């Protein structure tokens, strides 16, 4: 690419981005994973809305998973990471990046309350430093492992 064509490309990108961004944000919210097991009251909080969740439904980056007093939820992410929640629990999927060919990898989970289990997947193998399990009192850096976390807020 010549300098001139590169500049032209950048200018084109700058012009098109503002109008294209909202549509892109909707269509490109690629699924981070899928709900495999759901029992009792379970919800996905997405964009402020609390949606009753069922097995088979997709989970997106920045979704919050919630269970009620009789709820349980098990999900598998696209990189083979697995997360499960016991009753009265809440976990937020803050970051999920899994494009190994572009080395875009990252996983940040926020354990808000209740009990949950994390089993590491491909991101932990390929980019262990990009994984953070956050809680209100400490950060857990889990390497190739199965970890259970309980949060009493």
């Amino acid at each position, binding site marked *: 690419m010549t300098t001139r064509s590169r500049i032209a490309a950048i200018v084109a990108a700058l012009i098109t981005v503002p109008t294209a961004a909202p549509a892109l944000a909707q269509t490109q919210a690629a699924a981070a994973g899928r*709900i495999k097991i759901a029992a009792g009251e379970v919800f996905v909080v997405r964009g402020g809305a609390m949606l009753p969740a069922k097995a088979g439904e997709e989970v997106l980056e920045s979704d919050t998973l919630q269970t009620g007093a009789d709820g349980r*939820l098990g999900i598998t992410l696209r990189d083979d990471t697995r997360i499960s929640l*016991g009753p009265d629990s809440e976990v937020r999927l803050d970051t999920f990046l899994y494009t190994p060919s572009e080395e875009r990898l990252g996983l940040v989970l926020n354990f808000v309350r209740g009990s949950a289990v994390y089993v590491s997947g491909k991101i932990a193998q390929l980019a262990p430093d990009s994984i953070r399990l956050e*809680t209100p009192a400490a950060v*857990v850096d889990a390497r190739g492992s*199965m970890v259970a976390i309980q949060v009493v807020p």
Partner: protein
Amino acid sequence: MTAPRPPALLVTLVVAAFLSACAPKTVRTDPDPQVQVVLLPDTDTGEVGKAVVSNQAGRTELSNAYSSTRVSMGAKPRARKMKTTDVEELFGEAIATLPPPPLHFTLFFRFDSEELTEESRKNVQDVLRSVKAQPVPDVIVIGHTDTTGATASNFELGMRRATAVRALLIKAGLSAAAIDARSHGEMELLVQTANGVFEPKNRRVEITVR
């Protein structure tokens, strides 16, 4: 006539009892969030990884099965061993709700063909079994080739291989919507070779079942 007034002492006692009953709910003695972290052996492989728990006050490393730490804000995390009965009580339901582990398979093909090798034909059952083990299966099938032949025709051959495996899965009862079949042609070799090299290990389909 005026109504009899309750004795002042009784009123005081009732009010005091009411207030003290409310007290534990309204006044929190420990407002800090409490967090417990425990390292578990993988339910499927038994492997034990490693976890480092840290906050502003310090850090602790968990590296043995059931090693755990209880943390509150500002207090240094310390490792101790959690009893398996406590693990069961705190996390039993969450552990029981973990989806089955995702599995990966590689099936090999005859030269320039979408026909499985004798050996790989036997492994199809393992794939089907792992699909049945998943409550909501997602299957990703990626076809690959060796470097003999043109890049474009290898892309097509990879797609024919992926499609053949897809057809096998559908025949076994899996819904077509659960299968994502793709080709990477000769772009992702299992055994690195120069162009135009016969390599049986590169003529394959890689399957993820999750």
